[in-house]
């Protein structure tokens, strides 16, 4: 079991999730965030914080998002860690509205 960020985070990167992560396992690129499954303790603190419901426990992933388990595991360790909240990407609010939140 692990916890994964999915494509809803893309282009938005609100980092509300990062502020409550007890172990700093979020990593980021220009587009979005990824969780390092080796470090994540599956506490679920980040899940309700995400304003666009991008984060799932592995068991709760919709079928069409299962590929994100692998993407998180591969990307996270190679990217810089995100330990404090960052500015959302430009256009984040619009993207949030577009996703219906």
């Amino acid at each position, binding site marked *: 079991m692990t916890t994964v960020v999915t494509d809803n985070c893309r282009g938005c990167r609100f980092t509300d999730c990062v*502020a*409550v992560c*007890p*172990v*700093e396992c979020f990593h980021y690129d220009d587009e979005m965030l990824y969780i390092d499954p080796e470090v994540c*303790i*599956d506490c679920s603190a980040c899940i*309700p914080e995400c304003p666009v419901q991008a984060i799932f426990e592995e068991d709760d992933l919709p079928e069409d998002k299962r590929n994100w388990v692998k993407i998180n595991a591969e990307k996270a360790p190679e990217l810089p860690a995100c330990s*404090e909240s960052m500015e959302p990407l430009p256009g984040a609010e619009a993207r949030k509205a577009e996703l219906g939140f």
Partner: protein
Amino acid sequence: MAQVGTEHNPLYVAIVGSGPSGFYAAEALIRSERTVKIDLFERLPVPFGLVRSGVAPDHPKLKQAIQVYEKIAEAPQFNFIGNVSIGRDISVEELARHYHAVIFTCGAESDRKLGIPGENLAGSHTATEFVGWYNGHPDYRDRHFDLSHETAVIIGQGNVAADVGRILSKTVDELRHTDIAGHALEVLAESKIRRIYIVGRRGPAQAKFTSKELKEFGELSVCGAVVEPAELQLNDASRIELEDKTNAGSRKVFELLSEFATSTSRDKQRQCHFTFLKSPVELQGRSRVEKIIFEKNRLQGEPFNQSAVGIGETFELEAGLLFRSIGYRGKSLTGLPFDDKRGVFPNRDGHITDTQGQLLPQFYTAGWIKRGPTGIIGTNRADSVATVECLLQDLARLDSSETKQGAAAVYVILNSKKVRPISFSDWKKIDNEEISRGQPLGKPREKITSIQECLRIVEKSG
């Protein structure tokens, strides 16, 4: 004199309580651009607060948060002073004298009361005591729990109630290889409990469990989860609550309860029943709890703001054991104002105020004693960061001419009172001893539950 928080005039901060909020406050200070000297006080000889003594023994992954705290403890600005109780060994006034600022992160160590007749009968306990006991907290090691009855009742439907219910539902084989206290394992091995009732005063849409915790009840080896289908009927307001897009958590909880209602797990040796809309009104029994009288409730109010009101009908359960798990509660501390209603230190954004709302210089707070007893480990990180931001903004107002001595002054006081402070490297000795005692038992550690024994271990190894 240089500004406080610079190389020639470091900012001395005392933090009181070594749970998550204490460590995250230390981390935020270390990461700031200021020159800081941090002393983290803990009343026990062992650190980590409820991560050690609250988080359930069968949830070891969550305890990996401790690795983060160990890293923080390595920072040169950080110093641990364990076995020192603020208010008893060192006063709040003394901290104010020797530090520029004090952050109180002492958690919520007491509990809420039901306030009903019979609450103090033998066999009626708090979840706080039971959790402390099975997790080897020194304050609770000598408690006795009589598990020779067949029925146990837990009042409250939060994650703590789930922890208590799960520990009672598991076999000792399911717990043997965890860091559960040895004394608890012995008593649980003799448990006769077959029926557990986890009782909510509101309905299934308002249960406070998180789905991950509830789900475990469907996966236990000898215990089945039971819900009466009729109890899952919802009123309109609850239906609106569950349909709300932002309420995915409660929706998942409700789905799980619905699964329990249709499952066939009733043939298992033990059953854990989830029942709703009932408030205990009296505990009856001659010398100990024998029967619990509930009043049935209905919900009243707007969606997300519904409360339980009694409908005058009663419901009875014969049970020999009751745990109230209706929330922890903060304790007051001599020298600080206390909001008795909420059980917290009154504060504005983490800056402690008097009861009239006037800011008190030097005093800050974070974690459960700031917000009240809710939120998980990570919640305290954002909270401590906010408090430290508030503290750093106030720095300009500090008197930079007054020099502080921090730990040097504190050690003198402790020495005069014959209190032996525990450093972080002392704790590592206790830690190693616990790990090696656990090894032959196949446990990650066997906790040392006596403060005297902790001190002996530290002394022995010099």
